[in-house]
């Protein structure tokens, strides 16, 4: 395991233990649903699955991931990056 991985695991652990992770995920999902991101991803997943000759989860994930990551509205992304940064700063003394 690389040092980067270990740091990630440690930070991730703090996020979940403090309940910060759940809070961020819940409000992120709410925001993404209001902007239509959730529905457009659902629609894309469904239509891609429908058009696949043999349906495979991993292949579906491969096609959807770039779209999902790329289509998060800029404002929402900036807002949540800021929230994460704030929490991180509060953790480093």
């Amino acid at each position: 395991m690389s040092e980067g991985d270990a740091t990630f695991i440690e930070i991730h652990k703090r996020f979940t233990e403090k309940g910060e992770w759940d809070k961020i995920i819940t409000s992120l999902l709410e925001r993404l649903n209001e902007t239509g991101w959730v529905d457009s991803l659902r629609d894309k997943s469904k239509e891609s699955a429908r058009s696949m000759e043999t349906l495979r989860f991993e292949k579906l994930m491969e096609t959807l991931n770039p779209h999902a990551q790329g289509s998060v509205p800029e404002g929402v992304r900036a807002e949540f990056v800021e929230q994460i940064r704030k929490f991180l700063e509060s953790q480093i003394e």
Partner: protein
Amino acid sequence: MSQPAALTDQIVASPSPPKPPVIVIHEEDSTCSHLVALFTNESAKSALIKKYKSAVTWAASANLHKTQASKHTAKKRRLASPTCDACHVVLTRPVVCLECSFAGCWHNAHAVAHLRVSDHSFAVEAKTGAIFCASCDDFVYSNILDSLYDHINLSAAEKTLKYRDPGKIKEAYRQWSPDQKDQDFLQTSTTEVSSQGRRGLLNLGQTCAMNTILQSFIHNPLLRNYFLSDKHNYKLCLKPKDCMCCEMDKLFTEIFSGDPAPFGALSILPVMWRGSDSSSSFSEGYAQHDAHEFFISCIQHIHRTFKGSTESSCNCIIHSTFAGALASEIVCGKCRFSSTQVDPMLDISLELKGKDKDSSADEPTLHSCLRRRYTRAEKLPPKTYTCSKCGSNSDATKRLSFRKLPPVLAFQLKRFEHKTADKSSAHKITKPVRFPAQCNLAAFTSFGSNSEATSNIGPDILYDYDLFCVVNHEGAMDNGHYTNFARFEDEWYRFDDDKVTHAKLSQVLASNAYMLFYVKRQLDYHPVIRPSYVVSREKEAQREREREKEKLQTLNREIDDDLMRLLT
């Protein structure tokens, strides 16, 4: 036929409303031959189901705990999160082996790696209940585990509700399984028909507005289940004529008859005309009107002709489907004294004008319209309200919220603006409003927006709604045309009078909506209560029998007396 207790005199509804009523259940269905093979061995099956249950139950209660905890200001003890047995990352979505105690991550492929090395066959993603089969090397479907997943999540939610508020009555959902008698009856005396009622409706001369609203009824799971379970049979109805419930029953009978040809709902408009007073817009011959007006008028007709309907706290099919309550709370700015008025509602009309200050999005959304109206405290103009406690008449604020959310929420987006009474000068607001396929309305309830009461709000899933019908108005205001989208299970269809075509979710959500219909994902059940009119009818019959008996006794006594006189 014996009916399950939960269904008699109640709306017949399944826990996930869009599904059709299940009649023949537990016929095994799976995409994985390995799982099917394993299930033939009873002990292996029960061992796997036991592990599946415990993993999914854990995730369900962790999830409920999370939504509860994130709303509380006070810190609560959190359930310890498991970590991946391979890389020790905290598992927010644990993948659990169904043959040993391994829990691992999906992203670094440790869960799949475990199955490979240990030669174990199945794992479950605890949060969604999805099953991964090592031999298929993919997620697989099983109807048995699928319905088990729904059941576990529903009962987990019901438990927190009881725990939270022991005084509140929430009847636990019970699945109906036909017993031997029911099975025999179903096999010998019934014919199976498709549970998909999908039929175009003929345009009978500017009746597209009516057609879209009728499609919204046909696809409304509560109305559909009510009429399909024969709660109002038009052949047995005692009303001599103009019964709107009978009209609905006939409509459902036609739609589910299996005949694919478009149907002309000829008799509905005349019944509406005859039942309306002359001041209403539904006077004789008038057909082309606003879909929302038709909706309101039609549900009122159904309510009025429903046996046992009442003016307040009515239990008719319309009120049990659409009725909710709005609370308007006025707080005095001087002494903080608050008074709340609760009003019944059957639908929600939303203004499209005005700017939403809080939202960064430029485009209005259903949520931004709701936020503007149902969470924000609005300053009342001075002298419009006088505090009953301190007498002050300035600085009062008013806030609207949902006191009771209905099973089916009907929204009207007010696209037609009438500047004067003259209808021809009205104009149409064409700006798009974004709306979601699923939404949670907890934030707009009286509990959700009041910090003291948030602990009373209960699990989030009790406020989840799914979109099932969208009514659209195309073209200009005076010569426009109504169409609609409606959903059956997870598929959408577009209805343009007699034309019915398959549609994608993206098309539905991109359409310029005029009305939106959402159905609550988890319905509240009441304990079975016999309707008061049935009870009083039975009491009357009982009294009648007693009177008859008394009469008979008196008569017998008189005869006896006569006989005695004769004998002596």
